Every structure is written in C-alpha cells, then in structure tokens.
C-alpha cells in the first residue's frame, strides 16, 4: 500500500473522530464528497462506505496493521468497538425481559466493585478482628445484599428467575456464597435500614449505569472519547426510562445516598462511606 493512500485514509479517520467529538451523531460523522483518490484509497483498504452524504471510512471490516499502528487508527478502532457496545446496550434495553435483569446485575456489580469502605469501629463492634476478614466477608455478601434489595425495592420475590435471561449474555450474574459471612456484613451495614431509604428509581439508575460500565470495561474501551460515546447513549436511554433529566437523576441519587448516610449514623458517626458504595460510575 502506498504511503499517500495511508495518509488519505488517516485523514478520513481523523474527520470521523473530529465530527463525533464535535457532537455529530455516528451516522452523520465522517462524510465527504466523493473524490476519486479518496474512493480508491478507501476501497484498497476495504474501508469504503457510500451514502447519500458522500463517502466515508467504513465502521465495519478489519483495519489493516499499518493503520492500527497509527494513533488515529488505534482510536478509530476503539470508537468502532464503542459503537458496537452502544448498539448492544440499545438491544438489551429494548428487550423487556432483559431490562430488570440488567439493572440487578449492574447493582450487584456496583456493590462488588465498591469493596465497602466501612468505619473500623463498626467492624470491631460486630466482631470482625481485621480488615482482611471484612474483605473476605463482603465478597461473599453481594448476593444476599442484592437479593434483599431486589425483594424490598424492586418488589421481586424470586431474583434467580429474573436473572435467568442473563444466562445467554456476557453480563455478570451474582453468585450465592457463604451465608454466615453475608449476614454479618448485612448487620454491619444496617442493610435493612438502608433498604427502607433506597428508592426504586435510584436503584434502577445505578444498576443500569453500572451494567453499561461493565460493558465498557469488558469491551476493553481505552479512550475517553469512546467511553463518552457509550455513556451519552446510555444516559439518553436512562432519561427516557426514568423520565427525568440527567441533572435530575444525578441529584436524585446524591440526595438519596445523603439520606442513607444521615439515617444510618451511629452515635453521630457515619458507619460507612456511602457515597463510595452507592455511587454513579465516574
């Protein structure tokens, strides 16, 4: 392949990235009026796409090694992966049998990822002797904490049944583990009290966004520009679903978690850093 052709394709990729960054929808990005040498170069790389707006670098087909080695090529490949993930999210979100399962899976994933920062005096009061013991216990407690939330907040008795559709997806399914440990964690966190405060829309929002976050991470997305593409789509879906604006959703979550922190104080002290446990993915 000629150096000039690589340059032409690189420019087309740059245009795509720039258009996306400037707010154009993926479908509208990267188009250029048909020019013979551009058409020729794109065709040579197997990256030719033609539409009503002209031609652009295709979002499908594999990128040749010498393009992948360039910064533009690497970023474009990451963005293509992100576009694919956005489409998957849309598909899952539109499937009613998967929606709740997705939220629950995300909620459990959020709990697991938090590692539960709790004040040490609270741990000692409940008989934990060191932090290592706590970390082992919390990894066993995610299932119980999630299933209790599902029952109390979502109003669903059988979590297992709701999670069944996830068997055919890559989304994480919480596993049942040591019940004794889980009960102790539940007591430390005053989880029953927490569940009296947690609102359904807050749990749905957290669950959905953490599930998206799992897909971003497992999809190995590396560039913030690509992450943003997915997050933008996800937030739009969430706004529609909860019928609130992004700002309202954020405020709702912060307010609800503030309330959890306030209502679970012990002798004036917070028992856990709740904003690090029940939090929106960054």
């Amino acid at each position, binding site marked *: 392949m000629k150096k000039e052709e690589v340059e032409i394709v690189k420019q087309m990729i*740059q245009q795509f*990235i*720039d258009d996306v*960054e*400037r707010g154009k929808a993926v479908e509208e990005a990267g188009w250029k009026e048909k020019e013979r040498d551009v058409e020729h170069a794109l065709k040579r790389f197997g990256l030719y796409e033609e539409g009503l707006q002209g031609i652009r670098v295709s979002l499908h087909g594999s990128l040749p090694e010498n393009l992948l080695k360039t910064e533009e090529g690497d970023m474009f490949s990451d963005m293509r992966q992100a576009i694919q993930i956005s489409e998957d999210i849309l598909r899952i979100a539109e499937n009613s049998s998967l929606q709740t399962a997705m939220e629950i899976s995300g909620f459990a994933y959020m709990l697991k990822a938090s590692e539960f920062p709790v004040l040490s005096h609270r741990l000692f009061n409940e008989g934990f002797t060191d932090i290592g013991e706590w970390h082992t216990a919390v990894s066993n407690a995610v299932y119980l904490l999630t299933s209790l939330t599902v029952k109390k907040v979502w109003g669903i008795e059988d979590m297992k049944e709701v999670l069944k559709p996830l068997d055919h997806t890559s989304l994480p399914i919480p596993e049942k583990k040591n019940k004794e440990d889980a009960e102790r964690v539940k007591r430390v966190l005053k989880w029953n009290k927490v569940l009296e405060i947690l609102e359904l829309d807050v749990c749905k929002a957290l669950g959905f966004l953490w599930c998206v976050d799992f897909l*971003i991470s497992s999809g190995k997305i590396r560039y913030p520009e690509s992450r*943003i593409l997915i997050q933008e789509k996800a937030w739009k879906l969430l706004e529609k679903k909860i019928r609130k604006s992004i700002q309202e959703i*954020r405020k709702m979550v912060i307010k609800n978690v503030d309330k959890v*922190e306030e209502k679970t104080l012990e002798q004036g002290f917070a028992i856990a850093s709740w904003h*690090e446990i029940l939090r929106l993915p960054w």
Partner: protein
Amino acid sequence: MVMPMEERAIPVSWRRPEREVLLENRYKYSRPPFDPFPTVTNVVNASKCPVAILHDILHGIDDITILPGEYGVYDLYQRFIAHLKLHVAVGDIPSPLDIRYRFEMFARAEEQRLKENCWRYYLQPWCNRKLGEIEVNKDIFFEVSVANAYVPFRLGNKNPTYPLRGRIDEIDLKNKRMIERTIKGRRTDEEPPPLKDFQVWLYWKILSSIDKKYLPEAWKDINFKDFELIVETPYNDFIVEKDNPEFERKAHIAYAWIKDLADGGKSEFEAYQHRACTYASSDSECGARWACFGRRYKYPTCRSEIHREFRKFYPPLFWQQMWDYHLFRYQLLMLEKRDLEELGYLSEGKVITLEEGKIEIEMDPRIATPILERQVSSGEIENLLVIGSFFLGFEIDARFERIEGRRLLMNVGRKKFLPFERAMVLPSESSILKTSPWFLSRISQKELFKLERWGFEKDEKAETHSVIQLLESVFGRKNIRREGH
C-alpha cells in the same frame, strides 16, 4: 461532543462548612458536607475547559496555563525579577552592563540550559524594556497571599459569592497597581496571553472584596478597588479592564464546574462533552494536553481494567484533600482567633526583627505551646508563618529554631522585608499532626493517572518489562509464577 460552555445553570449556591464542621466536631469521612475552597488557578483552569478542571481536581494536574517543561524557567524568571526589584527598593540599582552578571550570580545553582533559556528568551527582552523604568520604591511587594470565603461576582442584579484565594505576583502600593507576570506572549501581541487578564482580575476581585476590618493595620486605608491591573509579559504590558461582564460570567461558569465535578453533580462524560478542543485540533498551549490526548499503548493489555480499579480512588482522594486542606482554609477565614487557638493551630505574636533570613517574634510562651508540641512529639520544625492577616498577608515557610523567654526565633529564608507586625504561626501544610499531608493525596492522584496512561507499543519491550508483566498479573489474566518453577 463539544458543546458550548455557556449551557450551564448559573449561579450555583456554594456550601461553606457549618460551625460544627469548622470546629472539627464532625468525623472527617466520606464526601464532605461543603464545597471546595478553590484557588485562582483552579478557577482559571475551569474557565479554560471543564476537562482541565477535571484533571486538576481528580488527577492532580496543576496550572494548565503553564506547559510541563516551562515550570523551571517560569519560576526562575519570577524569582529573579523579585530579587532585582527588592534590591532596587533599597537603592541598589543595576546597570545594563552588570545585569547579566547579577543574573548569573543569582542563578548559579541552576542548570546551564535552563539558565540560558530563561535569560535569552524571557529575561533579556524584559530587562531591555524595563530596566530603565525601575525606580526606588519600597512599596512593592511580591507573592502576596489573598483570600476571602465570600467574594461577590455580579450576575444581573445579584451578587452571589464564592470562596477564592491566591497569590499575587506583585503589588505596587506607590503606583497603585497589581501585576500578573508571565513568560507567555510574543513581541507582536496586541492582547495579553489567554486567561492572564482573567487571572489578575480574579486576584483583584478577592482583594477588593475584603472587609476593611480584616485588612492588616498598615494597609487599612488603601482602596484596592482603584488599583490598575497589569499583565506583564517579557515584551509587553497590558492594562486590564476591571469592569468586564465577560469575566463575571466566566467565573460563574467555572465555579459551576468546580462544584459539580467535586460533588458528583457531573462526571467525566459531561466534562468531555464540553471539552474546549478536540483530538484533531488540540490546544498545543494547554498544560493538560498530555493528559487528554495521545496514544493508548498496546501494553498493558488490561488498561481498561486498570482504569476501572483506579478511578474509584480519584474522588475519595479529592475528598481527603477537601477535609485536610480546603477545610483548613475555611477555618482560617471563618473561625475566630480563639477557636483557632483552641484547635491548637494558631500561635500569634508580634514581629520584632527580620534580619538575614531570621525572624524574631514576640510571643507569650503559653501561646507558643502548639509549636513546641509539634517539635517535641514528632520533630516537626516546619511551620506556616502568616504575616498580616489570613485575608491579606504573606505566607512563608518558617523553620522553628528556638524560643528564649518571650522571643521566638524562626528561619524564613530569603525574605527581605515585611510591612506588618502581626505574625501568626500555624502547622505547616505538610504537618502530620494537624491532618494527613494533603499534597500526598494529590501526588497519589497524579501518579495513578500517569500509570493509567503509561505503557509500551512494542511486543518485545512489553514482554520483558517487569512492571508491564506485574500489571498484567494484578489487573489482567496473566498468572504470576515464581522463577525456577
């Protein structure tokens, strides 16, 4: 994704710490129940770009108006001009013939290339232009600290207030002017370098907002509202218009971003939606460019897992800085002297002499107890010495030497003269007795972020690099095996 910054709801209401928080009766944990206490640099960063302030707050990246390689030159330039003017103030006027020699002597400990660059590109043009203008003037002060927890910024008919603090490069009381000095700018410029005018205006906003009762006695009758604002580059001086609605609006938007990013009201994705530049047209003058753009190397292959694990530390590390440092700044301005003494932070006295880098302060030995306690219990001899008031004064790193009767002796380095008598000794910013050293959280943020970005492209290099292999094992799927098994 680039959206105009103007699409912001302003003003935002700023939460200051309540009295029980100020008195530290609330356990310092989780998300603080108050908003940050920003510096002028934070506000300038936020007004340039939301991603810049995101990097500042979460990734410990400092002043984005200075490129990473410029810090050394910038610092030397500032220090030498201050040194020169302080000498002129006492009648020691340099001639064009010996100025280079003076610089060489002043900078003899610096690296040759840095020295050469500083002289050739910045100081020489500055000296050519300014040397003849410097007059004997004892009323010039450098690095003056200003702060106020309630600085008003106009918005329509309202004047919402925000906290703000900073350090002014130069105040000239005789000629009634404030100078923001920069190495940015070219000979042909007709306008000040971007944001420098806004920066000097912010300093002036703080200064002119301080209630007279909080000004140091000697400066009580000065009307800072009248002062002229100047941005000084090596080649030009620019006078900055004070009555500028654009600056007021810029400040409101910047505060909205700071608040939202600090308390989770917005996150990475919204900041990137409003980023000031794009990959294709990135701003080469931005000090945070390396953090925004650039290749994500192939190795480590578990980069997204690393990001997932690291990012959860960024907000709590910032909250820690807020508990440890921002709260301290609120305390200094919002608590009474008695409260600060009871917290064990403040020991106040009167400056007696300042000679050859030693300051002598008259102080009741009982008041000096916290200073001695810090020295005895943990060997801490570094203190923060504030001369003047917490609103307007000089913040100096001072090393405790000894106390004899009612006389406390401290080492303050190169300071030449100070105009006030009131001296307040506080724990140094790195004190482990007061709080955990806040700047370590900032370094942790920066190092974590750098590690997130670091890596190699070539297979052979990555395969033999122990750190890459370790990262792959900790965050990826590689199994660690002991050598020889």
